[in-house]
């Protein structure tokens, strides 16, 4: 029960927050926290539950961002449809990538995803007829939209905030659902011991590819959102190694293989980083590195993983 109450309180707070502060910096901060929650949750599905540490998730983020932006800029498709198509494209290219990389295990898988991500970044950088290369893509204005009869003001941050809330709830719902499904049990079995899982009759490649596709779908959505929110993308922003690495950190620091972990990780890391960036401009990832080292050393279950054990009812469950 405690967790349902916590979740309800959480959603209530999320919806009420914009009424508390009108300061654009705080609103931006909240949007960034939600954006990174989304990415942390995406990574967590594969890296947390199935134990497959990907260092290449920026690929799906980038593909989602480029799909959304290109469909809008070149074909004039609604960005809101493009957002979902971005997620689907991410999931689609996850299939071949998964089939190749899942032939490898442990750290070798991680290195392979890193290589794939770099190949995709270099292609995006050089395929100028499609992606405009290093120049990037720019949206000057978003199409008008009516929400219950009143036009949406795209110049304010509020609409983006609510879109981010909706996407985050979808991602966390998907995580919650998968963690309770048969697929979730398969993934945990794969994480604990791949050979035993196979011996028990689990089609491990299939389970991992499905997890990767869902994960890539969420990352693709996040990518589309990134494009629309910042209205500008270029390959070195959305396909960079540091994007891939940062989402790993969010998920691991928050707590791997937990539903609420990514949001806890994002609240901690993004808040510290954005406040630091506001003051010093560079070096805001110092705390990412530091917290990662502390978490791995002292609480590998992550911040939320640790806090969760203090909640009433935790003992009975585990």
């Amino acid at each position, binding site marked *: 029960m405690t967790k349902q109450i916590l979740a309800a309180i959480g959603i209530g707070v999320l919806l009420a927050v914009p009424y508390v502060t009108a300061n654009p910096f705080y609103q931006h901060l909240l949007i960034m926290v939600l954006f990174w929650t989304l990415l942390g949750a995406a990574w967590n599905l594969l890296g947390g539950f199935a134990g497959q540490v990907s260092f290449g998730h920026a690929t799906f983020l980038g593909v989602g961002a480029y799909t959304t932006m290109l469909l809008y800029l070149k074909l004039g498709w609604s960005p809101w449809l493009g957002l979902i198509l971005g997620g689907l494209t991410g999931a689609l290219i996850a299939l071949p990538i998964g089939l190749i990389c899942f032939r490898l295990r442990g750290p070798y898988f991680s290195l392979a995803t890193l290589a794939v991500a770099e190949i995709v970044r270099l292609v995006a950088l050089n395929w100028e007829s499609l992606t405009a290369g290093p120049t990037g893509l720019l949206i000057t204005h978003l199409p008008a939209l009516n929400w219950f009869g009143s036009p949406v003001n795209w110049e304010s941050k509020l609409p983006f905030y609510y879109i981010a809330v909706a996407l985050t709830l979808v991602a966390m719902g998907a995580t919650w659902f998968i963690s309770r499904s048969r697929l979730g049990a398969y993934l945990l079995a794969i994480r604990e011991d791949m050979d035993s899982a196979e011996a028990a009759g689990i089609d491990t490649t299939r389970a991992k590819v499905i997890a990767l596709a869902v994960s890539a779908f969420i990352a693709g959505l996040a990518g589309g959102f990134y494009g629309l929110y910042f209205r500008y993308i270029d390959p070195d922003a959305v396909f960079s190694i540091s994007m891939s690495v940062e989402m790993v950190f969010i998920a691991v620091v928050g707590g791997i293989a937990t539903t609420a972990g990514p949001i806890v990780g994002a609240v901690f890391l993004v808040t510290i980083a954005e406040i630091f960036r506001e003051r010093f401009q560079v070096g805001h990832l110092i705390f990412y590195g530091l917290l990662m*080292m502390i978490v*791995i*050393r002292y609480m*590998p279950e992550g911040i939320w993983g640790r806090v969760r054990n203090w909640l009433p009812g935790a003992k009975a469950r585990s």
Partner: protein
Amino acid sequence: MATLIQTIVSGVLTGSLYAMIAVGLTIVFGVMRIINMAHGDMVMLGMFGAYWGYALWHLDPFVSALLWVPLMFVFGMGVQRLLLRKILPSGELNTLLYTAGLSLLIANLALFFWTGDYRTINLPYALAPARPFGISIPLPAAIAFAIAIVITAVLYLFLSRTDTGRAIRATAQNPDSAALMGVDVGRIDMITFGLGTALAGAAGVLLAPSLYLYPTVGEILVVKCFVIVVLGGLGSVPGAIAGGVLLGLVESLGAVYVSVPYKDTIGFVLFLLVLLFRPAGLFGVGRS
């Protein structure tokens, strides 16, 4: 023909330094089973060492190596002793994540203190390249190449001839048996990590006059390094040397005969193919 020779020469020059970085990564992996994501940042520290030595004290980078390489050795030992030792038993994925954290920490501290500006070291003798047989060879690259060969050769002799070197190789083969034979594995781990870091730092110092330096340069270097050690076979020193020279050649030939923008892609594709079909490396000497 002249273009081909020129391309091969510059490929080998770059490759020798790649090889040196990769040897550091591969011995650390061999002994401790750590894939050190922070290895590229150690190269970056070496580069900045050379830069500050030149900017503040007018020390020639190749002279300041005498200062930075031992310092990097001590730094590496300290990192192993104080930070990595406790993490080692918790498995390869945890050490991978931990060193990724270390990498981000080092790179961002550097970014914070030294800013993200691109810097160069302009050596007076770097302007006119040597031209033996009509091939253009930039002097700093040639000196770096010579020093890299000497360092690699010394390291090779150290590993194959000295007691400590033998203990390192024994630990790489089987830590438990090595411990039973009286090898202090904890001490060997520390020395190995120090050596790996010193090699990375040395390569950084040697590369500094030929490359732009900035705090996040380690990111791309460590990825190249992974490509090399996988090509050569993880844990194998001769494999890392061959892989380094091979990647140097592939990049330089690819830039001339395929396309400049896609030269880095060739290395990654090769890397994936080797990982998938020959996980023990091209020469079959690494551990899959």
